[in-house]
């Protein structure tokens, strides 16, 4: 069957307008098509995208046996109305085809059609067809702006619709429809705000409001900033059009979005609107505006001058001066105007993240290849930062290169973005929210004042901010990590509201009162793993005597997880305790919460994706632990599903791309799990918390896992370093093997994923905390490698 099935049900020649084609096209391949009408001895008439689609349940029904549900769903609106625009005369006797050509060079599909003239009375079934689809038909005519054409009017009359009814259905007034609005030029300059030059095809008196929107909540009345010029004829515009210049000062424009909508509300209650994009920067304005006439420039100069008069109150004398000079020049030589204002400098502060009590993380951009900007300083009520530029990390901004083309073709680098952590001890969010602004200081006293486009503060949960930061500022090298990201994220994470000490605990079955081992399993996201563990613990007698604690650290699934444990108990009969956290606290906190309620002499920290290979492993691990000299932490051998090694102890290492940063490494990862002749425990620098046994008292005495690492990373190696600092040893057992379904670890090269950034942040934190100890430990080196327990 062809990928596209098409049936043309109607084709009418509308004199002076073109050919109206209606029918359906059922498409099974999700391909995109060029559609054209081929009329004998005429060039193809492109129909393009100006279709109107209509729902066709009858067509869906037709294909319901042979097509998949997905294809059917995609083709719900398989009906179409299209207009092949053609201003000339088309002979209805011409042989005509509708041609669908897929963009991916698949086979074309054709549908033959026979044209009918629309003059004279319509056949009753054609009239019915059109009447039934009147809204679609009107939408099509509106789209092509042909409602007022005589042939369309006579068709609509023949269909039998009242003009009033049409208006009601369409929600437009045919007379207002004739109003047209156009924007010749729209440009935003850093400090001057937004300037638009355009025309509207009516007299200025008929405009009652002018609203500027960005598609979101922003909706500003810009009429106070609008100057209408006298009507004059310009080629390509309706004869009676009025030109206007709108200059919106930055004070009225909190955000300068790229995609804008300007709507004029008219005195008769109707409105006219247009959407357009604004470009940024003076040079661009000058170049794109070269066609604007002298009179418009003059008006523009007046607008700017008028609004700059207001700004004198700010004491920005230098700017006022340059603006007057612009106005002066505009009267003489229009094209030089913006040169004088901004020359080759542009920039913005895109984001400021408030790091409570510590400072600001500033993210922005600055184009300054002539190195005119001397400093960038943040000011707020009662304080100011130092110059952030010397320390700033330069970010690549391909989006700006694109936005500033063709000017950007001359740039020597795309690293026009920057990010900088500016320390400001004791700084408060509320103060910054009300008073923060930045100054760019140039040579010769030129100074620009900017407010940040986005000011981010946290409200107890800094995770969204951290995620956003890591997406904006990829930790490309050790410098940005150590100087900017590390301190900023550290401060944000420290500002989170403290977690509750007590969380609700539910007992399922009869967990033992005095167990030897408490198994603590944090649950986040995939709670179905509980079922697999229970199925695999069910036949292991160890789990009748152990205390199994599930810590559900994920409010989204808390009730589901609890319910699952309750439901499955009669089948698997593994007693357990379920702690339901009222917010997501992270891996370390979840383990700490579990440890706090545990009753066993020993703790076993276990991940939910660790699965036993055989019964008896828990008592075996206990026996080995109790026989250790200096017992600290004891890990197990963890295997990937294919049987290769996932974990046989951890150590520390650095990689060339981040000199000085201590990362964890898993020696032997992915190696075949060779039968180990030495089955006794092996001393290692650290073990993973995916399966880690430790005395409960010892765990509590060193403060458990450090909760200041973010989202489950490095707290295990940190914990092992804490035990070492307390004079204990760390071991793993080659004899006790379990499966660990850990995802393949992410590579450190290339990925821009924020999770990867987080790993680097956590490594930074570990390095700050333990760098010296790790270096010493690795220097002592060889001794622990061969050391084994008795």
């Amino acid at each position, binding site marked *: 069957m062809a990928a596209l099935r098409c049936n043309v049900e109607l084709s009418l020649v509308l004199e002076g307008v073109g050919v109206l084609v209606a029918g359906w096209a059922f498409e099974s391949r999700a391909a995109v098509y060029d559609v054209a009408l081929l009329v004998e001895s005429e060039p193809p008439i492109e129909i393009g995208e100006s279709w109107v689609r209509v729902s066709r349940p009858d067509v869906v029904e037709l294909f319901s046996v042979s097509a998949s549900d997905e294809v059917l769903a995609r083709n719900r609106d398989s009906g179409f109305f299209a207009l092949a625009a053609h201003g000339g005369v088309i002979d209805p006797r011409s042989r005509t085809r509708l041609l669908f050509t897929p963009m991916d060079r698949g086979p074309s599909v054709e549908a033959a059609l026979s044209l009918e003239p629309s003059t004279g009375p319509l056949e009753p079934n054609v009239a019915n067809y059109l009447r039934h689809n009147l809204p679609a038909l009107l939408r099509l005519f509106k789209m092509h702006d042909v409602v007022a054409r005589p042939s369309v009017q006579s068709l609509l009359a023949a269909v039998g619709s009242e003009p009033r009814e049409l208006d009601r259905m369409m929600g437009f007034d045919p007379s207002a429809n004739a109003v047209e609005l156009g924007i010749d030029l729209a440009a935003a300059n850093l400090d001057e705000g937004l300037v638009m030059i355009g025309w509207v095809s009516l007299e200025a008196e008929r405009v009652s409001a002018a609203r500027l929107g960005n598609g979101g909540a922003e909706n500003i009345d810009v009429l106070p900033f609008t100057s209408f010029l006298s009507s004059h004829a310009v080629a390509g515009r309706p004869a009676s059009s009025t030109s206007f210049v709108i200059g919106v000062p930055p004070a009225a424009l909190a955000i300068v979005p790229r995609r804008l909508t300007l709507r004029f509300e008219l005195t008769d209650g109707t409105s006219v609107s247009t959407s357009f994009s604004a470009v940024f920067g003076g040079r661009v304005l000058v170049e794109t505006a070269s066609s604007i006439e002298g009179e418009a420039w003059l008006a523009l100069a007046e607008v700017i001058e008028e609004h700059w008069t207001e700004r004198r109150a700010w004491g920005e004398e230098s700017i006022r001066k340059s603006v007057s000079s612009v106005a002066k020049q505009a009267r003489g030589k229009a094209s030089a105007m913006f040169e004088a204002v901004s020359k080759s400098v542009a920039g913005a502060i895109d984001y400021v993240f408030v790091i409570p009590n510590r400072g600001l993380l500033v993210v922005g951009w600055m184009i300054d290849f002539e190195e005119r900007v001397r400093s960038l300083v943040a000011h707020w009520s009662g304080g100011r930062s130092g110059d952030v530029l010397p320390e700033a990390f330069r970010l690549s901004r391909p989006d700006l290169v694109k936005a500033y083309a063709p000017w950007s073709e001359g740039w020597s680098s795309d690293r026009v973005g920057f990010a900088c952590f500016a320390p400001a001890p004791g700084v408060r969010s509320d103060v910054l929210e009300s008073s923060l602004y930045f100054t760019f200081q140039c040579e010769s006293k030129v100074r620009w004042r900017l407010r940040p486009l986005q000011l981010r503060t946290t409200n107890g949960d800094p995770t969204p901010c951290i995620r956003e930061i890591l997406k904006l500022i990829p930790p490309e090298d050790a410098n940005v990590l150590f100087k900017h990201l590390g301190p900023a994220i550290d401060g944000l994470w420290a500002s989170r509201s403290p977690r509750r000490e007590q969380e609700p605990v539910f007992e399922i079955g009869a967990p033992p009162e005095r167990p030897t081992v408490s198994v603590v399993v944090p649950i986040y996201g995939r709670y179905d793993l509980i079922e697999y563990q229970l199925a695999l613990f*069910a036949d292991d007698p160890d789990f009748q005597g152990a205390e199994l604690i599930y810590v559900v650290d994920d409010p989204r699934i808390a009730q589901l997880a609890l319910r699952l444990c309750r439901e499955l108990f009669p*089948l698997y*009969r593994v007693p357990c305790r379920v702690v339901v956290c009222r917010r997501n606290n992270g891996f370390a906190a979840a383990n700490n919460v579990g440890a706090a309620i545990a009753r066993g002499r020993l703790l076993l920290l276990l991940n939910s994706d660790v699965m036993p290979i*055989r019964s008896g492993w828990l008592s075996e691990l206990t026996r080995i632990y109790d026989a250790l000299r200096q017992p600290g932490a004891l890990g197990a051998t963890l295997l990937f599903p294919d*049987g290769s090694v996932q974990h046989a102890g951890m150590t520390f290492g650095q990689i060339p791309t981040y000199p000085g940063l201590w990362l964890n490494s898993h020696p032997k990862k992915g190696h075949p799990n060779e039968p180990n002749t030495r089955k006794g425990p092996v001393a290692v620098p650290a073990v993973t918390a995916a399966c880690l046994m430790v005395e409960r008292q010892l765990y509590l005495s060193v403060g458990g896992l450090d909760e200041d690492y973010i989202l489950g990373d490095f707290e295990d190696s940190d914990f092992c370093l804490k035990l070492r600092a307390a004079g204990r040893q760390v071991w793993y057992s080659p004899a006790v093997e379990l499966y660990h*379904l850990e995802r393949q670890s992410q590579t450190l090269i290339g990925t821009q994923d924020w999770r990867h950034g987080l790993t680097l942040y956590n490594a930074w934190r570990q390095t700050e905390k333990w760098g010296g100890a790790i270096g010493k430990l690795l220097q002592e080196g060889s001794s622990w490698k061969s050391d084994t327990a008795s």
Partner: protein
Amino acid sequence: MEERHRVLVISHGHPEINPGGGERAAYDLFRELKSRPGVHAMFLARHDGGGQNAAVFSQFSPDGSEVLMNSECEFFRFSQRDVQLVCRDFRGLLEWYRPTVVHLHHFVHLGLEVIREIKNYSPSVPIVLTLHEYLGICNNNGQMIRTRGDELCRRATPGACHRCFPDVSPQNFFLRELFIKSFFSLVDAFVSPSQFLIDRYVAWGLPREKFVLIENGQPALEPAPARPLGSSGTRGRFAFFGQIQRYKGLQVLLEAMTLLPKALRGGLDGISLDVHGAHLAWQSAEYQSAVHKKLERTRQYVRMHGGYDHADVASLMSGVDWVVVPSIWWENSPLVIQEAFAHGRPVICSDIGGMVEKVRHGENGLHFRVGNAQHLAERLVEAATTPALWDRLRAGIRPGSRIRDTVDKHLEIYDGFSPYHRVPVTPSLRVV
């Protein structure tokens, strides 16, 4: 008389409601067990709830020995999501019937959880599970062929399964395996009608010592007489029996029919084919149209008969000389091979899996390279034109096992469990 065994036979369906080889084998076992002195048997068949009373259970036979259970499970890891159904309702039935042995013929629809609940009920009641295909191993309907290109699969691994089903991660395939094995480890004996299936499950990690090979015995029947030949006729009439779906390979056989030499197409001395198979209309539109296209090209010498009643097999066999089994999957122990042999018809089959175990090339049938229509066409020509080949292969057919023998062997297993049977519960989960 002293009651030696109380056997609860559990099936994924009742053959009178869901006709199928597995259901039939389970029911035959139950009927024969019930007739033996000292054995009490009960048949519990799952059904989909249609037309029965609203309770979980409903009585199917007047004497109460056949009961239906309304259940459905999910089909990735065969888990019964309704734990109450298992731990309350199914458990209640166990407590009421008090079986000494539970014999499961399958676990689909019921869910694997019933196996654990039998052990919860009593660790001393042995569990026997008959395996019919490779469902535990393979997510592609247990066929062990790849989802793309009909390639044969020799070993399922999480990575290989993920390549067949890209939407399911290797981790989830591994969890599936662990989950299924956690229940299989509670089974005391596995019964398989083919050595091939045993080898596949042992390679997957089940202990070989738990397996017993027992053929699905057939009821006693009167063999169909050999097709009488006219003065010049040859043994050129072939037949296909069974459901029509692509794994059964009818498309290969029809393709082979188009490749026959012109002189041998139909006629008294030529080759013809009778297709007895239902459910073509359930197949995909492409498959249907491919079959119809080939039938159109071969209509002079291929006859499409559609479905048939099991009772008519003998009369259908009497009109043909050979039975062709062109399956493109491994098969286990196809019923059609047993039926062909019971009626003295040599079999031409694909050279893989459970088929070659039952059909020996040159002894009681012929093999052709699986999926290879050209090779099958050569075999058909060879079969129809080699003098005395048919008689020789027909003479090579050994009598198949009877239900009576099958049940004797089952009773041997049940007898082998000690009265205080205890299962050492040490799950052996390692991937071999």
